[in-house]
């Protein structure tokens, strides 16, 4: 089971980070977005090639108002 931002996602192992981003309505050129998979940063240049494991935990982050 793949967790996308803490929720069970309609994603299977072998799909890419880019596919995960699409579930959130984001494309490869999304500004101000960063991705971590299983506690490791996945740089933008690897979004298309990085494949998710069966139990991947994917965090997709962006700017939020804060001090």
């Amino acid at each position, binding site marked *: 089971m793949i967790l996308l*931002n*803490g929720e069970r996602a309609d994603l299977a192992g072998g799909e890419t980070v880019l596919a995960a981003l699409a579930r*959130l*309505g*984001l494309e490869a050129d999304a*500004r*101000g*977005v*960063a*991705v*971590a998979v299983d*506690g490791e*940063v996945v*740089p*933008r240049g690897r979004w298309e090639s990085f494949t998710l494991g069966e139990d991947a935990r994917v*965090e*997709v*982050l*962006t*700017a*939020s*108002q*804060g*001090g």
Partner: protein
Amino acid sequence: MNELVIAGRTLRSRLLLGTGGFPSQELMSEAIAASGTELVTVALRRVDPAARGSLVEVLDRAGVSLLPNTAGCHTARDAVMTAQLAREAFETDWIKLEVIGDEDTLLPDAPELLRAAEELVDDGFVVLPYTTDDPVLARRLADLGCAAVMPLGSPIGSGMGIRNPYNIALIREAVELPVVLDAGIGTASDAALAMELGCDAVMAASAIARAQDPVAMALAMRHGVEAGRLARGAGRIPRRRYATASSSDVGLAELT
């Protein structure tokens, strides 16, 4: 002399703004314009597909640079990871480093802060650590290679102003780095005091965002910072126990 330089970057405004707590993005943009700030902080959070508008684009239009923070991190590991993600997201090496040690006061966790600062400096970050008003800790952070120190005046969002002005003055003497008073500012006079104590800049978030009129308070903060800076340079008179007449007795009339 009149411009603030942090890590080789010149900033004309000595006011940094937090973007959290504004009732709307419109008010935030107006407050940013009124404050004259060039640098605003943002937090890193999960993408909300339902959120309207991109904060990054709004801030882009406001013409300000982003200073991502590590707000909400309680360990060096989380803070380092957040900084690395922020670098990816915003293409900046600058990071306002916060490592919180206590939920009620949001005071920094000194050992974790030092650990994270060291790791981030080694990784090429421009590190601006949020720290307690402890001159020794400030010096340790400076020794590690931080680009500035950001001591608190009082707990985040408390609006209690500068509880220990003596320590802020000591921090000013302890480090040669820019000192940015962070946290606790409640109103414009607090910002002025920070500058009078020798701080190089002031960071305000809640004090502006949660004021009844955020735009007016942003303008007040801007003037407070400028007034305090001018007063510091002007050299205040010493405090005395008794009065010193400002009008001469020479030529005083005998009227009765």
